């Protein structure tokens, strides 16, 4: 193509096609942007008013960054390429103060040894705040509430007026981008950053929203952060007036990080989601059918939890208030919008216990010197400690009988009360807080793998890997304890008062380690795995999805792969077992012939009856008006919104030095001036010649 350009001149031909020359000059590459988000008071994340252009500059270490900032003799603006773990507030400030920064590229994963997973620091710094979402939690009124993430840098809450992009060799397309950028950065390094032409990157990252969530919602330049929560119960006939106690088993489904396309949160949220799904599977195999138990079991998987507990707060708000549907539409409601109204069957006053799985993916090391192995921790709220103590005792008791030898060898118990050291820290940031805010007397236990500090990977883009032995064992242990405790709670008995039949039944509840492992694989690495495929037939699509982000997305505008899978999975696990007639099959593979009854759903090619529903999840401070627009109803509650943005683009190209550009201008001006002079002189000569003629 280069040659094509030259021939245009060479043979006086105009065969130069514009798109050809564009492709020759520019290399458009795929991108993983940091975007702008807004809340009630301001903005966070990245914004770039102009298309920022910067010469690629590679910094591998902290020293490199410092050297770049202090280095003289650099003439243009630079795009600094650095390992993700060097992206700290201090470094950003340092780079900004050098006035040489155009943009930052943070490499999360790369083939270069500097960016490989083995090069990651052993001690991470969580980019979240020192107490994530606590301003919307149970103790928001307490100015001295316990800080669960003490080393959190708060990077996620900073706002940047320049583009920040990530590179990650997680798939073919992104590996191509990575290779192109790294090759260019290495060329520049080889050229000493002053031997032009150098490789530069241009970023288009204009975000439409500004100021705050209220302003941009009014102007229509942002969309609420949110998605779909899922709740399910094996009790198909649950009603708000049946006075049967409800045992809630809860977990979060989404996570957050700086780069939403990379958000994974294996420890932050996937471990809890997998735990809940494994619990549901184990309980579905209980020899005493769950819907015949004295108490209901309710599974809740909340989305948008990373955004001020939006999913759980909205769920609790909706089940706690009487819905006044102004425009009913069959089983749903057009205004105010609810896709179904079955959640009204859940009476919050009937909730008898809440067991929540928090971060449970990595059991800590054994406490040295005590002889006890690593354990999980059960957290309760201090103020309602009395109500929760019985539940706490039960869960610790169950833990002592589970005896998961692989996860906790030589240990007497596999779970202990988080306050066993005498310090009352209260509940860690969790969905349960939303329930307790509305109904403070509900006995509540949150199970986590930490006692005092959340994982250092909380809300980090590096929280993207798991260990096939350690993580699986850890989740299996948590799921065993939660499932058995929930089963006892649903039966309304404890270990001492169990009948032999019950003892046999609870023995039948075993967590399937292979399922845990499969779920982890499906939710982190390959959405087109056999397990998901058996429910959703994803491999039939032309481009089967692989690794998908766990950012909740924007409300009603993005697909919700994980809620859809969770719904299908829970629907199957809570289906009504009908012994007399076999289930109708073929509704998915042969939809024209086999159609399910109106009250049934087609899940994994079978028509089933289930009480599994989606529930909209977005900030409770935001409400939807009758014309489907959003407005801020209560600015003191979570109101996270994401700015709408133009197509985000990165292009890689050569730039020449400012000096050579000046030379080009001078040559042009001189040449023109010279010709003007020649014309003037020659005209005089011609005139003189003609006169003498």
């Amino acid at each position, binding site marked *: 193509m280069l040659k094509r350009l*030259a021939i245009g001149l060479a043979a006086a031909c105009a065969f130069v096609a514009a798109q050809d*020359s564009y492709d020759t000059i520019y290399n458009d590459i795929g991108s993983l942007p940091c975007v702008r988000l807004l809340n009630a008071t301001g903005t966070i994340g990245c914004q770039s008013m102009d298309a920022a252009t910067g010469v690629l500059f590679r910094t591998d270490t902290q020293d490199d960054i410092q050297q770049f900032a202090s280095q003289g003799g650099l003439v243009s603006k630079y795009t600094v390429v650095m390992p993700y773990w060097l992206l700290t507030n201090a470094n950003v400030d340092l780079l900004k103060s050098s006035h040489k920064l155009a943009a930052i590229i943070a490499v999360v994963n790369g083939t270069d040894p500097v960016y490989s997973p083995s090069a990651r620091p052993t001690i991470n710094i969580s980019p979240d705040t020192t107490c994530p979402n606590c301003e919307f939690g149970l103790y928001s009124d307490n100015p001295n509430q316990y800080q669960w993430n003490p080393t959190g840098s708060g990077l996620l809450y900073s706002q940047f007026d320049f583009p920040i992009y990530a590179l990650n060799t997680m798939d073919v397309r992104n590996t191509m981008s990575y290779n192109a950028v790294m090759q260019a950065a290495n060329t520049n390094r080889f050229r000493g950053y002053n031997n032009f032409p150098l490789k530069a990157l241009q970023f288009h990252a204009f975000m439409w929203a500004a100021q705050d969530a209220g302003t941009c919602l009014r102007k229509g330049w942002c969309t609420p952060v949110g998605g779909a929560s899922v709740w399910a119960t094996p009790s198909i006939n649950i009603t708000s007036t049946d006075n049967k106690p409800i045992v809630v088993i809860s977990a979060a489904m989404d996570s957050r990080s700086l780069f939403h396309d990379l958000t994974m949160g294996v420890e932050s949220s996937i471990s809890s989601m997998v735990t809940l799904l494994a619990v549901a599977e184990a309980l579905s195999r209980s020899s005493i059918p769950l819907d015949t138990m004295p108490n209901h079991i309710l599974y809740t998987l909340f989305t948008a939890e990373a955004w001020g507990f939006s999913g759980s707060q909205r769920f609790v708000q909706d089940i706690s208030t009487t819905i006044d549907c102004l425009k009913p539409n069959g089983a749903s409601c057009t205004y105010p919008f609810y896709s179904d109204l079955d959640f009204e069957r859940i009476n919050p006053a009937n909730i008898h216990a809440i067991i929540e799985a928090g971060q449970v993916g990595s059991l800590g090391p054994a406490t040295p010197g005590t002889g006890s192995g690593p354990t999980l921790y059960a957290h309760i709220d201090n103020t309602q400690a009395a109500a929760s103590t019985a539940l706490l005792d039960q869960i610790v008791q169950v833990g002592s009988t589970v005896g998961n030898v692989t996860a906790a060898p030589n240990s007497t118990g596999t779970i202990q009360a988080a306050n066993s050291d005498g310090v009352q820290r209260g509940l860690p940031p969790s969905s349960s807080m939303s329930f307790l805010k509305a109904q403070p007397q509900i006995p509540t236990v949150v199970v986590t793998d930490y006692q005092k500090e959340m994982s250092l990977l909380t809300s980090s883009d590096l929280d993207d890997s798991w260990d096939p032995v350690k993580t699986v064992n850890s989740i299996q242990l948590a799921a065993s304890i939660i499932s058995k405790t929930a089963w006892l709670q649903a039966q309304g008995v404890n270990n001492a008062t169990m009948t032999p039949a019950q003892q046999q039944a609870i023995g039948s509840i075993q967590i399937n380690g292979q399922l845990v492992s499969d779920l982890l694989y499906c939710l982190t690495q390959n959405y087109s795995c056999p397990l998901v495929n058996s429910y959703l037939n994803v491999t039939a699509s032309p481009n089967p999805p692989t690794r998908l982000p766990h950012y909740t997305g924007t409300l009603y505008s993005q697909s919700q792969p994980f809620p859809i899978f969770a719904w299908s999975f829970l629907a199957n696990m809570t289906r009504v077992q009908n012994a007399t007639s076999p289930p109708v099959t073929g509704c998915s593979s042969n939809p024209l012939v086999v159609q399910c009854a109106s009250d049934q759903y087609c899940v994994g090619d079978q028509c089933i009856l289930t009480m599994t529903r989606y529930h909209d999840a977005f900030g409770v401070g935001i409400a939807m008006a009758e014309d489907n627009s959003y407005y801020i109803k209560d600015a003191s509650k979570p109101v996270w919104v994401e700015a709408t943005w133009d197509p985000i683009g990165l292009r890689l190209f050569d730039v020449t030095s400012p000096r050579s550009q000046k030379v080009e201008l001078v040559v*042009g001006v001189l040449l023109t001036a010279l010709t003007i002079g020649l014309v003037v002189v020659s005209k005089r000569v011609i005139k003189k010649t003609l006169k003498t003629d």
Partner: protein
Amino acid sequence: MTLLTFFGCALTAYGPSLAIFFGYIAPNAQLVILMVSSAFFWLISLLLASAIWFLATNSRNTFTSTIIYTVLLQELFRWCLYLLINRAESGLNMVAKHPKSKFNRSGYAFSAGMGFGLMFGIISYITQLVESLGPGVLMCPSCPSISLYFISAITVCIFTFHHCVWMMISFTGFSNRSYLRILWVIITHYGASYLTILNSSRTVNLGCAYSILGNVVLLIASTIIVVADVRNLYHKIS
């Protein structure tokens, strides 16, 4: 920052020819008409060349073969233009400032050459010039430290002058039946065109320098011929 490049390249490529146009051709209506019609002739030659290029699917990217027929077509249309001007000359001379001047034909040839040159410059370079406004540059493959925009601008500038002198030489050649002059024009046209291939060469180091220097040498040689011809004319008259 690329604005500097844009203006630098625009002035390099078109500054000299525009200076000549406004200083010499524009004040004279008949020269303007001549220039425009000559530009039109050049365009027709290009149209035919593109048609051949389009049909010759196999050799589209073989520049050596493309050059063969494009240069030949341009020379063919130069001759057609000469025939046309030759017919119109008496009329043109009637409205000229000095109807009897023997130098009128040189002026016509120069303006017609400028028509060829300017149209060539516009067609072949304007796309690149527009691209130069973007942040990225295309480096000259044979001189990796200089942008192709600038090399092309210089080439365009030289070729515009080439066309002026070629037109003057060939007009003298056609009217005096001096086959040597006609041959010189054809050979140097091929020579100059093939020299520019060096710009895109990845094997010849500093190819762009050879290309530009070679072209300048050819231009000087042609200019010497033109000057000699004009002096001959002058001496004949005096």
